[in-house]
């Protein structure tokens, strides 16, 4: 230690200096109080031995001045008093001295006191260093949070959350949220939405969900089903995250054209479907393990599908909402959340929900991130709405398609059971620079023709089954049964050909199945509901130039102007 000895007696300075040197310290000297303060400022010693009675400025005054200087750094001052008087002692301590000893100097006492001070200094230095390290950790953590938050924001593409068909609320507990909401439309106008909740909250939870948005947007853009998207996310997350990290997620597909709501729920609270009167008509409880736990081969991508009608809403949220606790630890609970939707007018539900949480938690920070989504099916805008618009914006002609490309696909029973070919075709058309507006029309045409060929041509399903109560559910379960038993020699062909002449650019689409053919007039055209809703083949006839079925009805050729 560097120790300042302030004493006007040369003898005392010499004695104390020799003692300190002997103890392994480095003594420096001052002959009066003023010099002591000057040397202190210049040399910043670790400890001071200060005589009280000195010329120019006494030890008490110098001590007061030194103590007012050394802020943040403990520098013990030991007073050296001539008299063993209580007044001296009190004055010394009040001036800021940490200890004292009396003259005549007794070597063992000085040694012991300097050692005691050294221990105090070491503890203090240790704390100082740890505080600095903590400050650095804190700063680094804040910085990591800021960067993660930035990446999250970029990756979730928040501008896509401006779709009028839904409202959302995301309240993170930390700067980074472990809850994530992404939404986008497929080329066919289907709203895809994911509400994901990574393990825990804060930085590590936010890191967990970072891979999801890219998968979600890339696959939605080419019309993969939410089951396929969930499976892909599971494979990616399983490969990336440690065993004890996973993501609870609800994936939704709300199709305005077919008026269906499709749900995949793995580990999130039950997703509610309410009718126009605010009554709960369907509960999609978690039927799967969260994303990132199962091996890809064990993953279950099956979804639930429900048909909706006017005024239906879909409500999904993370467990942070029902689990939000008040000061006594009482949770908000599902009943109170559901009550909001029963009793509040449709446009006020989200505001009411926020105020309910604020009141319950008394505006305190919640323990977990909260995220809520309300989808209003009435605001989805169907394709029919778009095309019946008084001034439909006709898509600009595509220029980038070169002449002469042709794609032909032939799927057997095995492929049809496991594969949805439409995303491949849409992806290809996208890469061939077909504009989004055309892609949207083409998706509708291709998926309609493909589904007709599969459902009516190969699986021989009668559209009439869809009518009536539970008709839609019955239709879907029958479809599943028949697809599983599809005969091995069944085939379905898809052909796409780009035809360019001087006057026109067209895409020819041909779909043929190995079935006996079906009467497209009664099966898909003569259906009043389909016509009424502007769906199905009548919609295809509206957007395509020409739709021609062969006489037996197992082949259709559509011509579409690009």
């Amino acid at each position, binding site marked *: 230690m560097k120790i300042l000895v302030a004493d006007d007696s040369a003898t005392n300075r010499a004695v104390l200096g020799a003692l300190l040197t002997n103890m392994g310290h480095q003594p420096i000297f001052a002959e009066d109080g003023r010099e002591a303060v000057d040397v202190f400022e210049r040399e910043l010693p670790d400890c001071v031995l200060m005589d009280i009675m000195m010329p120019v400025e006494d030890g008490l005054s110098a001590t007061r001045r030194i103590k007012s200087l050394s802020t943040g750094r403990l520098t013990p001052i030991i007073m050296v008093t001539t008299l063993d008087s209580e007044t001296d002692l009190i004055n010394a301590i009040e001036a800021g001295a940490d200890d004292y000893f009396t003259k005549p100097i007794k070597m063992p006492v000085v040694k012991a006191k300097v050692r005691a001070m050294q221990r105090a200094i070491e503890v203090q230095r240790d704390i100082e260093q740890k505080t600095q390290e903590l400050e650095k950790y804190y700063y680094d953590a804040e910085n990591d949070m800021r960067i993660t938050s930035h990446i999250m924001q970029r990756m979730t593409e928040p501008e896509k959350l401006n779709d009028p068909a839904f409202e959302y609320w995301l309240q993170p507990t930390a700067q980074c949220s472990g809850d994530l909401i992404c939404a986008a439309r497929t080329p066919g106008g289907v709203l895809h939405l994911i509400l994901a909740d990574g393990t825990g909250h804060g930085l590590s939870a936010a890191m967990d969900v970072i891979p999801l948005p890219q998968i979600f947007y890339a696959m939605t853009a080419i019309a993969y089903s939410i089951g396929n998207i969930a499976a892909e996310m599971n494979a990616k997350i399983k490969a990336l995250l440690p065993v004890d990290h996973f993501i609870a997620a609800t994936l939704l597909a709300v199709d305005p054209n077919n008026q269906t709501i499709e749900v995949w729920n793995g580990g999130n609270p039950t997703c509610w479907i309410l009718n126009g009167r605010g009554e709960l008509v369907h509960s999609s409880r*978690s*039927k799967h*393990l969260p994303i990132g736990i199962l091996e890809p081969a064990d993953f279950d991508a099956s979804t639930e599908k429900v048909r909706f009608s006017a005024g239906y809403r879909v409500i999904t949220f993370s467990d942070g909402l029902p689990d939000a606790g008040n000061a006594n630890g009482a949770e908000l609970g599902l009943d109170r959340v559901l009550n909001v939707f029963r009793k509040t007018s449709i446009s006020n539900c989200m505001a009411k929900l926020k105020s309910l949480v604020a009141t319950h938690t008394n505006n305190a920070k919640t323990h977990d991130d909260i995220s809520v989504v309300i989808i209003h099916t009435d605001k989805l805008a169907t394709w029919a709405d778009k095309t019946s618009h008084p001034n439909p914006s006709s898509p600009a002609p595509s220029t980038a398609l070169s002449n002469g490309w042709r794609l032909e696909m032939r799927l057997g029973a095995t492929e049809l059971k496991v594969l949805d070919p439409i995303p491949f075709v849409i992806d290809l058309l996208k890469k061939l620079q077909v504009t989004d507006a055309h892609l949207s029309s083409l998706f509708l045409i291709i998926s309609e023709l493909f589904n007709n060929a599969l459902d009516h041509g190969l699986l021989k399903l009668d559209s009439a089954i869809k009518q009536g109560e539970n008709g839609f559910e019955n239709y879907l379960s029958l479809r599943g049964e028949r697809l599983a038993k599809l005969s091995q020699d069944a085939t379905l062909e898809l052909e796409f050909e780009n035809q360019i002449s001087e006057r026109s650019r067209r895409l020819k689409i041909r779909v043929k199945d190995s079935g006996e053919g079906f009467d497209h007039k009664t099966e898909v055209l003569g259906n009043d509901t389909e016509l009424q809703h502007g769906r199905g083949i009548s919609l295809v006839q509206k957007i395509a130039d020409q739709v021609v079925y062969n006489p037996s009805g197992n082949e259709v050729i559509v011509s579409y102007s690009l």
Partner: protein
Amino acid sequence: MQVSTQHTGDTITITLEGRFDFSAHRVFRSQYETTLQIPEVKHISLNMAKVEYLDSSALGMLLLLNEGARASNIQVAIVNCPENVMKILNIANFGRIFKIS
């Protein structure tokens, strides 16, 4: 959280008590790692009767235990779950991985 174990034959019962959350990570992990080292163990029974609370990081710890147990051919059962614990395990569909009662 407090963790205690009881060894009978080829079964180890791990009894958990209190809040099973991130703060329990170290004690839970060291306990099950010791358990997995014991050669004659064939079954681990996690007694949840006294667990007051369980969060998603606790679910993560159960997955870690399961992974370790699977590598040593040990069956893991989660028993005596109180209602609130059962609810959380059900939402996460952990019944597909563990025997839960």
